[in-house]
């Protein structure tokens, strides 16, 4: 590139560069979105593994099991307010409450009162509904916006005195015919009027009685539901109490540095395995979040700023008066180089994510303060694939950086059962089995 560019030449270069930066921004956005989903999936797996760990720490609701859980975790509140005594008290309360309901006539005589077809209330309601139905039929059939007026003016009777020269005379006539058409069993409006007024008077009585009976049934059914609910609570009481204690333990362990109880958990190999899995998943989540922060999020703002800057410059140097301007091409070259770096960081993020998410070799981990899970995760990838991605130092991760500062000469000790496989894989990949991290492969991570 020439050392100087004309105004129009600069604009052309800046436009091309702007497009490249826009693509980088889109890629960063896409990866950030994917990262959120991946992190959520890892968190969910970590929660599941914590649930499994806690279930193994407290497998049942007994004094011995609770004492063991306290000894393993150091969580004393588990034993406070003796949960077994509390459960017995709850059982007594539920049992007493159910006994009370059993004495209630509405529950005790539930079949006698509300059995389908034969219950006393059921039958009474059915009978009343039978009387109610024809009345409701008349009331509903005669429903018309002019019905009340027709009754008031005595339409169909000798007292009706609206003269034929008034429009309302014809409207009354039309409404009367429309109502009779809906209730063909009445030949005249006078006949309908008589039955309608009687129905209007009687239906109120039936409605009141039916309402009373239905309320009585609803109340009885509510008592039955309450009893059933208490019965369910009673049958599930041991599991509910156990779950409540496990939930407390979960909260406690989630806020705890698991390393603090690592030694105790290691006494039981099955517990140790579950604890390693939980710790490993926590580490994976943490590493993924930090990878996203340092390799994606931190690039976003400068990329956006550069796009805005380029927009301003494109506008400025597109003006005719700047056509003859001489502008240093070095700036374009610098910006292009910077964009390449952002893209490389995005690629590094993808590689890190791939390595982090693929990891499931929890058994080889260690619940120890001086243990770097990052090494295990990256070495496990190498063990599996016989190769590294480049730049997997992970120095942008706080924990990794601290560890390397504290242990400058540290070398990851590969598990014994990896050596043979590693040697063979390294030989076939044509790389050494030392801890060199400079090997860059083009393994597809998409």
């Amino acid at each position, binding site marked *: 590139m020439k050392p100087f560019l004309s105004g129009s030449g600069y604009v052309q270069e800046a436009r091309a560069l702007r497009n490249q930066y826009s693509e980088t921004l889109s890629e960063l956005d896409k990866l950030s979105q994917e990262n959120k989903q991946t992190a959520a999936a890892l968190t969910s797996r970590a929660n599941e593994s914590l649930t499994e760990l806690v279930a193994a720490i407290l497998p049942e609701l007994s004094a011995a099991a609770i004492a063991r859980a306290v000894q393993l975790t150091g969580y004393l509140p588990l034993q406070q307010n003796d949960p077994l005594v509390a459960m017995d008290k709850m059982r007594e309360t539920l049992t007493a409450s159910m006994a009370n309901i059993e004495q209630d006539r509405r529950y005790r005589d539930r079949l006698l009162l509300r059995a389908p077809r034969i219950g006393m209330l059921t039958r009474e309601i059915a009978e009343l509904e039978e009387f109610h139905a024809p009345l409701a039929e008349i009331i509903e059939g005669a429903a018309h916006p002019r019905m009340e007026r027709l009754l008031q003016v005595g339409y169909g009777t000798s007292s009706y005195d609206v*003269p*034929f*020269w*008034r*429009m*309302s005379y*014809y*409207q009354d006539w*039309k409404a009367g015919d429309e109502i009779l058409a809906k209730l063909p069993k009445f030949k005249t409006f006078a006949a309908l009027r008589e039955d309608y007024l009687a129905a209007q008077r009687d239906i109120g009585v039936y409605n009141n009685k039916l309402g009373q009976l239905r309320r009585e049934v609803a109340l009885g059914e509510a008592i039955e539901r309450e009893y059933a609910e208490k019965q369910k609570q009673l049958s599930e009481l041991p599991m509910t109490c156990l779950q409540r204690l496990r939930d407390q333990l979960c909260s406690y362990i989630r806020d705890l540095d698991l390393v603090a109880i690592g030694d105790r958990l290691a006494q039981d190999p099955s517990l140790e395995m579950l604890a390693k899995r939980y710790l490993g998943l926590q580490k994976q989540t943490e590493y993924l979040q930090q990878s996203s922060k340092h390799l994606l999020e931190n690039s976003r703002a400068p990329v956006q700023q550069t796009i805005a800057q380029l927009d301003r410059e494109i506008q400025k140097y597109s003006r005719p008066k700047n056509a003859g301007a001489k502008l240093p091409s070095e700036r374009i070259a610098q910006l292009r180089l910077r964009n390449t770096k952002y893209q490389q960081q995005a690629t590094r993020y993808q590689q890190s994510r791939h390595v982090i998410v693929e990891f499931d070799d929890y058994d080889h981990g260690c619940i120890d303060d001086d243990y770097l899970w990052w090494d295990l995760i990256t070495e496990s990838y190498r063990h599996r694939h016989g190769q590294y991605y480049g730049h997997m130092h992970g120095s942008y991760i706080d924990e990794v950086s601290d560890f390397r500062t504290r242990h400058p000469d540290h070398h990851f000790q590969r598990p014994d059962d990896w050596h043979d496989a590693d040697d063979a894989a390294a030989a076939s990949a044509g790389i050494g089995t030392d801890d060199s991290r400079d090997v860059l492969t083009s393994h597809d991570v998409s």
Partner: protein
Amino acid sequence: MHYHKADMTEAIGCAILKECFSQAGFHIVENYPLAEGVIQFSVDGYDPSAKVGYEFVTTEAGDRQEITPSLIAELEGKMKKGELYIFLIDEQEVASAAELSDAAKHFLEKVQQLRNQEQGR
């Protein structure tokens, strides 16, 4: 023609009524100055020789000031005696053109029946 209640103006209502009355053979004079004793008002449509007509009462035409309850009472007195027949329609009572037209036809049938009875006596 299809009219909605909101469209039923004095002019439309009167046009429908005039059509119905004319079809029945009446010679309608619009805004006829009726003067029968104390009854003094301009009828929307009236056949002076047959003494049959219509009055479409609307607020728009200021009918509510002119057609007072006492005037109606006087008119109804004459109609009861068969001296004249005026179809009285309040705009608020009309839902559609068809309804107005049907009512007018029924009114005219009634008038015809009464006139026939009078002639038979």
